[in-house]
């Protein structure tokens, strides 16, 4: 359990940023992971009075405040409709409804937890992170950046017609994922993300290769085999590790299967004529 010396419900982001320049300070998101550590926090910075717990939908994007709970995203009709239930699929396995009512998207993405289901999923979408000082940073870059003392303010997800799907494998329901996979398609470009390797999620593929393969293998059986082969080739490029949940080899095999399933999911969405 952590200890907290001082607690500040800040009135502005500027105040939060100033306070956060001290190493002993910590931005308090949901506080779910923090609780499992032993950190001595000088100043806990609480952003909950800044109205950043909402999802806004515009013509071009979904804009999600950093303090939005995972549960609110999971149940958000607009996002689930747009991404074909992907938000629900991404978040439903995380501990329990009570946990997801408190855990925040900002907390999960800022920390770039290896086990983060949302990190893998949002990485597959056109996501940019809005930082207080650093401005807008594509999640593709943000995912491999070092921790700094900036404040994650909002998450922007573009509405550009991208189709996407999420897959994860858990040893038991509600546990951390053993592996997570996000797949998306924008026109002929396919993007594939793999997380819980157990290290941070990575973009494993972002190219038109799969579209070429599929156009060369139009017959159903041929395309099945081609997708499996593609999933296997992508998985070969990803570095997996071992931990108490699974070995690296097991993760690689899982990755092939989960990529295959997510690709099939995205293809079936396209076949429904919603391109």
């Amino acid at each position: 359990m952590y200890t907290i010396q001082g607690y500040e419900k800040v009135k502005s982001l500027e105040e939060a940023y100033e306070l956060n320049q001290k190493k002993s300070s910590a931005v308090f998101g949901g506080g779910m992971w923090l609780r499992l550590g032993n950190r001595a926090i000088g100043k806990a910075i609480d952003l909950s009075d800044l109205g950043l717990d909402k999802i806004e939908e515009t013509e071009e994007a979904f804009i999600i405040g950093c303090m939005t709970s995972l549960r609110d995203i999971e149940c958000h009709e607009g996002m689930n409709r747009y991404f074909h239930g992907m938000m629900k699929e991404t978040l439903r396995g995380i501990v329990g409804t009570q946990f997801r009512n408190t855990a925040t998207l900002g907390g999960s993405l800022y920390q770039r937890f290896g086990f983060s289901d949302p990190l893998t999923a949002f990485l597959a979408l056109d996501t940019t992170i809005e930082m207080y000082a650093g401005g807008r940073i594509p999640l593709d870059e943000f995912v491999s950046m070092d921790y700094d003392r900036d404040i994650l303010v909002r998450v922007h997800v573009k509405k550009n017609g991208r189709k996407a799907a999420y897959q994860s494998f858990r040893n038991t329901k509600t546990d951390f994922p053993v592996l997570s996979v996000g797949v998306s398609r924008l026109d002929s470009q396919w993007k594939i993300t793999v997380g819980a390797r157990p290290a941070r999620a990575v973009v494993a593929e972002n190219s038109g290769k799969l579209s070429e393969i599929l156009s060369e293998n139009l017959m159903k059986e041929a395309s099945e085999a081609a997708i499996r082969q593609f999933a296997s080739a992508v998985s070969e490029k990803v570095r997996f590790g071992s931990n108490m949940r699974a070995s690296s080899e097991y993760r690689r095999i899982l990755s092939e299967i989960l990529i295959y399933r997510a690709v099939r999911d995205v293809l079936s969405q396209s076949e429904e004529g919603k391109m």
Partner: protein
Amino acid sequence: MKIKLWINNKVYEDHVEPDTMLLDYLREKGFKSVKCGCDTTNCGVCTVYLDGKTVLSCSVPVVRADGHRVTTLEGVAKEAEEFARFMAAQGAEQCGYCSPGFIMNVLAMAKELKKPTEQEIKEYLAGNLCRCTGYEGQYRAIRNYLGATRANYQLFEKGEVIEGVR
């Protein structure tokens, strides 16, 4: 730090440490239904409502409840007792330690989901662990409770005999 919050509709004003958890504060105030079961933020025993939403009180600093409304099992005693009868009818409990948090989440679910399917019920309640049963009794109790308390809702198959239905 000075805080003011409502617990089961009664106002409390206090000075608290910034790292006092809602769980410990509630127990200190005599709400002993709220317990810690796992210490790893996942068993669901400490479930309370914060402004009507279920939260794990073990991981919410009480300063976050400043200005907000907290509800514990003691605050929903009537509804809890009604559901508990269905639990008892199924012999669903053994040690009973997990019941307060479980009942809080069942009542929240009953409010949120109009006609939940088996899958939806199990998913909604997956964050409540019971280490002595296999959840089957609880599940039967929920089916019967929902069947009895709302119109046109039958989760079990026609003709299926559920023992112990009141």
